[in-house]
């Protein structure tokens, strides 16, 4: 008769990686908050600090990758264990890239410097809120691994927010390009602000990827990574 027994060493390895991933998520969310606070308030010193601290996010991501490789090598996992471990590596890289986009926004802040903003920022704060929400939701989904039905519903909600952010990004670009065409004085800062919107749009894509990856972990269907493409 088959007896249930845990795999202590593998389970501890998974727990350690999960804990590190949660810690990395907190660091990224903190950087997210501080990036936009420093941007709107023109706190250039804070922006410099965030750029400097991005290295810790990078190092954390590499630590998760190395730990995952170590556990795979040691435990030769299969099925859902293998899907989780490869996905931790994937998600840590996505978080690391999000850190890069935030550092990029801080660099833009330094370039704009103390010059007054050419815009009242209506759409970018909306994009910021959506991107942050998507990131939180996708990480929550990835951390909890709910049942398939709940996960697909949560993923659907995340994907729908991505559509919204794409739409806002297009609006920011169109508005600023129109204004820049009318006044060459706006071109430099206008281009920078388009980049801020672009980075937010890319952050939302990364959050989307995390949600898609969670669907893969849960269903085991690699096609489900791109569920909407599959249906076409």
């Amino acid at each position, binding site marked *: *008769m*088959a*007896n*249930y*027994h*845990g*795999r202590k060493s*593998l389970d501890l390895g998974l727990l350690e990686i999960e804990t590190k991933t949660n810690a990395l998520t907190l660091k990224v969310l903190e950087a997210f908050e501080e990036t936009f606070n420093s941007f709107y308030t023109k706190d250039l010193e804070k922006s410099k600090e965030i750029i400097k601290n991005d290295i810790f996010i990078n190092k954390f991501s590499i630590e998760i990758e190395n730990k995952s490789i170590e556990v795979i090598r040691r435990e*030769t*996992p*299969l*099925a*859902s*264990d*293998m*899907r989780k471990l490869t996905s931790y590596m994937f998600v840590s890289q996505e978080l690391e890239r999000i850190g890069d986009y935030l550092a990029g926004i801080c660099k833009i802040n330094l370039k704009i410097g103390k010059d007054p903003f050419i815009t009242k920022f209506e759409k970018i704060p909306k994009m910021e809120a959506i991107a942050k929400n998507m990131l939180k939701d996708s990480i929550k989904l990835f951390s909890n691994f709910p049942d*398939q*039905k709940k996960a*697909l*519903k949560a*993923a*659907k909600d995340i*994907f*729908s927010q*991505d*559509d*919204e952010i794409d*739409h806002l990004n297009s609006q920011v670009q169109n508005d600023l390009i129109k204004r820049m065409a009318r006044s060459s004085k706006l071109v430099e800062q206008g281009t920078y602000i388009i980049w801020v919107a672009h980075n937010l749009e890319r952050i939302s894509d990364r959050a989307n990827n995390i949600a898609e990856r969670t669907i893969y972990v849960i*269903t*085991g*269907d690699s096609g*489900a990574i791109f*569920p*909407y493409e*599959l*249906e*076409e």
Partner: protein
Amino acid sequence: MINQKSKKIDKKINTETITSSKIINFEDPVLESINLNVYYGKSLAVKNVNIQVPKNKVISLIGPSGCGKSTLIRCFNRMNDTIRIARVEGQILYNKKNVAEMDSAEVRYRIGMVFQKPNPFPKSIYENVAFGPKVNGIKENIDQIVETSLKKADLWKEVKDRLKENAYGLSGGQQQRLCIARTLAVNPEVILMDEPCSALDPISTDRIEELIKDLSSSVTIVIVTHNMQQAVRVSDYAACMMAGEERIGELIEYGEVNQIFGNPKDKRTEEYVTGRIG
């Protein structure tokens, strides 16, 4: 705003249903068990196994100790006939013929077997391989059969200059390949392997695994293994067996190897392949 992505994932929810998968029907299976029950004395050991084995593929039987893998594999070539208290119900078909109605010797050279521990005869390397053809009345081209079989078993280069030496002088890995050559000498259509590498070192194991992959272009192989990675490496399909509270073995899931080890449908298979039951 049109929300394409959300619409499409709705379809995904509707179309994706996960079900337990026990039966695969092949067009022309070389082996098939139908409603197979095996008893040892009064105890039911294996219950209602229905499985088809496709031609020229490698099928792994996996599952915890005592779940009936060896019992099942031994039914395929009537090895259970040699166990006095064993009783088999149901049918085993070999190319649609009921093996119970075939000559047992014919069954065993059509469906050869390699065991956990290498078991060469206490004879020369040559005699070990020539034994089967000679017993089957073949008198001509024995040298050629021995050479071809040893080549197929990837042993020829190592033994061609010492064919008259006693087989016991070979290493464990070489002895196991000799046993495979001995099986191949009677030109079987199926080879059953019951944990063929469990007594071998990693290099010998690797050579047997390569051999299994090479042979599968012309021979069907059913292998019992406890080594999950080995099953992943060598098999096309995997069947998971499990015994419940009453210690009666059942087939719980059968599927393509990537599905069984990547995304098993049955929770018990998932727990077994991830090492959480056994």
